[in-house]
């Protein structure tokens, strides 16, 4: 029976009332009295030396208050990077300075050169147009493989090359992996691109800086997924403001998808300028600016080899990936292709030998960082593609090949440093197969063929690591921050309570689902519980929301704090009922004494806590407020199986997604409706990546897809009705709720389903196409059917350099069967 309230129920999202009626309070709705506006002059070339910036005429323009350039930031820190990677030789990565405004050189289209602060935004924009930036064009490096070649122009003159790091994982396993591959019965090789994406949250970024002279404190309102992290990074590393003098507020945030995790130059600028000018300073990004200043996602070029023995057991996986960092290191950029990607290369499989090599490369492009899934989609895509390709080469069923190699015993320690606590991959695959009528596929294919269409079925598994956390582990891995979470539960005298969580909701529905958990634990109505987040002035130090960590880590902190509340409340109840504490039970909002008919209500106890007339003051303090910090001892590992059916129009190459099914294991589920919504959104983004979205640069480093005229977002009509199921539940073994996280799964698991299905469709039509790089646009699919591979004006590399899909994706005849 579905529940009506509490854990497992699906109450409607309370926050949607304000969002759907236009009453949300977003950062751009915040206007501080006396505020000025800043507009950034941004580079329109990808690489150039700044010979001079003439602001004289602009300075004279109406309304202009002050124009800032790099020289105003001498003595101010650069934007810090939050993660340090150690390379194969044991050396730290190359870490260039990331100035707030371009210093000496511009390094990507969109790099801010000058900032005009004026009375109005239009005045600032007018003046920015009058600034004369004298920039000597330099050759740009866009293609990663060219960027690391001998003699390539340097993005940063003070670095030895454009290579940020060359990382081997696990370096000690390298030789064993090489041996396993050379001795394998069959090796399948695939070269592929994981396409660069623009996150495109509905709300562009905004920052408002404010400075209070009376107590020398700064406030930053910003569109952030983690206000405390911004406070720490910006305060300690950039502007030298102690945390007790700095407040960061991230109110309603209209979507983040990762790109609002990071600390951005515009935030530091507004905070800095507000103090300099003694006036609040506001920046609102335009959509065009967002395309060239929000951190992008993905952009990997990978070669993967899968070795199998004669019985089709996976014996080794070896990968070599070029990961684009863009022109500067964004906050978590170095961790994405390494710890969020390398550690997932075992997938759902018991492959004994794995070696992952990642070369992170600087190019004259917008910085690249985490985007929904971050590293795990890249891992899943290559693995699930190469397995499909191996099944085709070997003539075996792709589902059976996967099942044969599934990890089935838990806990399972992978050869890539993580331990899966629990899971049941056969269960999700069984569930999936029960949802999709695989037997009927041949008939459906014939029906499509009768209409002149090619039909394909793609099936794959995925696993991801969520609840991004254990601080000690991530510390060993190079994180410069801890990754616990916090919560304060403040119970009021009349029984209602407020939870101040370090997690941040920017569309996830925490105000609803978190309230369900606390209300359920105490047995009170959900409307007695208020969830507050996004303000460093009231929440304890928290690490924010990304990596599907909110419920698993933030929810656990909240549970711990609520447990402390309940323990204390029981002491009070015991005192009120003159019973022994051990006999007190809390159920449906009442405290009872076991074996008696005595009871007191939740509200009686909370009132006693604040009006302690009859109260055990010798034993406990008055009041009912508790804080907990939770630092788990492992990641969580959601996993599942996805399937999709597509139809390809062989005349045009157009792909239609006819059906998509997802069987996920998220452990326990608090609000099934919200979980389904998260999966739907993730699938839409994954399908968008697979079929539509392509952030492309040309050879000169101009962004070709710089607006929605050229960057295709998925729309409702591009998507089928989704079938989603989360009834397979192996609860997480190490957090109190047994939850795993569901925010990214859809985006992680779905791209390979789509590509597998399209390749299957093409093969059914007699087209021996090994692989097509995403997005599988009609032009690319059509060219692949003709045996070619179109570059379409984009300088981003294909994996291989050939002009045919075969050359590009398989390389020079590397597929070997011994």
């Amino acid at each position, binding site marked *: 029976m579905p529940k009506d309230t509490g854990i497992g129920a699906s109450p409607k999202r309370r926050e949607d009332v304000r969002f759907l009626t236009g009453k949300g309070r977003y950062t751009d709705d915040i206007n501080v009295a006396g505020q000025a506006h800043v507009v950034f002059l941004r580079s329109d070339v990808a690489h150039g030396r700044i010979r001079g910036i003439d602001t004289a005429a602009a300075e004279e323009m109406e309304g202009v208050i002050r124009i800032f350039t790099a020289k105003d930031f001498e003595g101010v820190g650069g934007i810090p990077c939050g993660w340090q990677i150690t390379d194969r030789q044991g050396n730290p990565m190359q870490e260039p300075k990331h100035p707030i405004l371009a210093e000496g050189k511009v390094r990507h289209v969109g790099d801010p050169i000058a900032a005009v602060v004026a009375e109005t935004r239009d005045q600032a*924009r007018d003046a920015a147009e009058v600034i004369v930036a004298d920039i000597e064009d330099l050759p740009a490096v866009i293609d990663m493989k060219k960027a690391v070649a001998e003699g390539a122009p340097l993005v940063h003159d003070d670095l030895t090359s454009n290579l940020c790091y060359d990382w081997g994982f696990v370096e000690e396993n390298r030789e064993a992996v090489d041996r396993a591959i050379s001795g394998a019965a069959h090796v399948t090789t695939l070269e592929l691109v994981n396409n660069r994406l623009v996150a495109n949250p509905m709300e562009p970024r905004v920052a408002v800086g404010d400075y209070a002279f009376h107590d020398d404190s700064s406030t930053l309102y910003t569109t952030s997924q983690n206000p405390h992290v911004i406070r720490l990074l910006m305060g300690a590393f950039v502007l030298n403001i102690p945390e007790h003098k700095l407040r960061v507020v991230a109110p309603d945030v209209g979507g983040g998808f990762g790109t609002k995790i990071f600390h951005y130059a515009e935030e530091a600028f507004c905070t800095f300028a507000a103090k300099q000018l003694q006036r609040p300073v506001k920046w609102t990004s335009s959509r065009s600016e967002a395309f060239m200043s929000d951190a992008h996602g993905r952009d990997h070029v990978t070669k993967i080899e899968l070795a199998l023995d004669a019985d089709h057991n996976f014996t080794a996986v070896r990968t070599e990936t070029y990961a684009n960092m863009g022109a500067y290191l964004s906050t978590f950029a170095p961790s994405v292709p390494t710890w969020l990607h390398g550690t997932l290369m075992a997938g759902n499989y018991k492959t004994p030998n794995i070696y992952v090599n990642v070369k992170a490369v600087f190019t004259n492009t917008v910085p690249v960082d985490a985007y929904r899934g971050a590293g795990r989609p890249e891992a899943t895509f290559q693995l699930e593609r190469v397995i499909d390709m191996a099944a085709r080469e070997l003539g075996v069923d792709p589902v059976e090949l996967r099942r044969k190699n599934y990890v089935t015993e838990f806990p399972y320690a992978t050869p890539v440093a993580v331990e899966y606590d629990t899971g049941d991959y056969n269960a999700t695959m069984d569930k999936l197969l029960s949802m999709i009528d695989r037997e009927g596929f041949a008939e459906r294919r014939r029906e499509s063929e009768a209409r002149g269409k090619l039909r394909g079925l793609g099936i794959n598994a995925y696993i991801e690591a969520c609840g991004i956390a254990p601080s000690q582990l991530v510390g060993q891995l190079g994180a410069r921050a801890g990754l616990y979470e916090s919560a304060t539960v403040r119970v009021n005298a009349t029984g209602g309570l407020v939870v101040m969580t370090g997690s941040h909701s920017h569309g996830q529905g925490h105000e609803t689902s978190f309230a369900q958990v606390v209300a359920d634990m105490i047995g009170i109505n959900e409307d007695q519980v208020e969830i507050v987040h996004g303000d460093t002035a009231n929440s304890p130090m928290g690490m924010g929301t990304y990596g599907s960590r909110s419920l698993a880590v933030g929810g656990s902190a909240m549970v711990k704090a609520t447990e402390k509340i309940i323990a204390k409340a029981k002491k009070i109840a015991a005192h009120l009922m003159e019973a022994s504490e051990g006999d007190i039970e809390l159920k449906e909002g009442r405290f009872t004494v076991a074996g008696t008919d005595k009871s007191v209500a939740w509200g009686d106890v909370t009132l006693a806590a604040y009006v302690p007339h009859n109260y055990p003051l010798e034993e406990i303090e008055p009041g009912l407020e508790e804080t907990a910090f939770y630092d788990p001892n492992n990641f969580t590992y959601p996993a599942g199986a996805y399937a999709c059916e597509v139809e390809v129009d062989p005349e045009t190459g157009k792909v239609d997604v006819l059906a998509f099914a997802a069987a996920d294991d998220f452990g326990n589920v608090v609000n099934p409706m919200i979980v389904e919504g998260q999966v739907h959104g993730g699938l839409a983004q994954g399908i968008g990546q697979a079929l539509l979205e392509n952030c492309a640069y040309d050879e000169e480093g101009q962004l070709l897809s710089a607006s929605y005229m050229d960057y295709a977002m998925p729309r409702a009509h591009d998507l089928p009705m989704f079938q989603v199921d989360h009834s397979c539940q192996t609860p997480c073994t190490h957090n109190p709720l047994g939850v795993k996280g569901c925010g990214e799964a859809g985006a992680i698991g779905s791209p390979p389903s789509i590509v597998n299905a399209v390749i299957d469709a093409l093969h059914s039509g007699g087209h021996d196409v090994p692989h097509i790089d995403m997005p599988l646009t009609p032009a690319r699919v059509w060219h692949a059917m003709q045996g070619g591979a179109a570059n379409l004006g984009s300088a981003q590399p294909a994996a291989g350099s050939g002009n045919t899909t075969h050359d590009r994706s398989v390389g020079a005849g590397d597929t070997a069967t011994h």
Partner: protein
Amino acid sequence: MYDFELVKPKTLREAVAALQAEDAQALGGGQTLLPTMKARLAMAEQFVALSGIDEIKGVCLDDDGRICIGGGTTHATVARECAESYPALASLAGRIGDPAVRNRGTIGGSIANNDPSACYPAGALGSNATIMAEGPNGTREIAADDFFLGMFTTALEEGEIVSEVKFPVPERARYEKFIQPASRFPLVAAFVAKFSDGVRVAITGASSSGVFRWTEAEEALSADWSPDAVKGLTAPDAGEMISDLHGDGAYRAHLVKVMTARAVAAA
């Protein structure tokens, strides 16, 4: 946006007069102009809004049986009012952009703009329409064949307004549009129209010189009105096609054939 003056005349005459001012520009539905103005890529001292001029709005029939559409008529109106009289044109209008665009954007604006990927130029050229241009010296009648002169270029003179477009109604016609997935403008679209004296085929989205008549297909189809007649043709020269992120010349040239054949099949 830069600052500008806006005038909103009630008659065509007043509008033509207002357009004679230094640096004045017509504003139709604004569905092309407003985004460019917001991006500060377009500017003028004075914009002359055509939306208050009733005499250039609406659809009627003339004595020759031509469908006459006022230059200020929105795409939505054409989609509605031509559904019976000229279904191919109605379906073209009904697939432009989204409802907001269709309820603002006008046929006059689309034709005057002559975007190489716009729909209406194909409809006008394929239908052998006549464009009525109103200027300070009166009205000029311009055949579609003489009107579209290449990407964003037309035979309109400075200060002229498209007041009406007259469409002869073919025996059969169809517009087949293959959308560019981001903008949803045509990547390639074909308008085919079969008249008693021959077939016309107009292609948009494909060529770097804008909308064009595919004469080989017209000849083939005039002789044999069937999709197979198109399938036997060689595609137009890929070198003259637009090549961009969404498709290179070879792909567009191929689509020209596919869309034309499909239009014939569906007409």
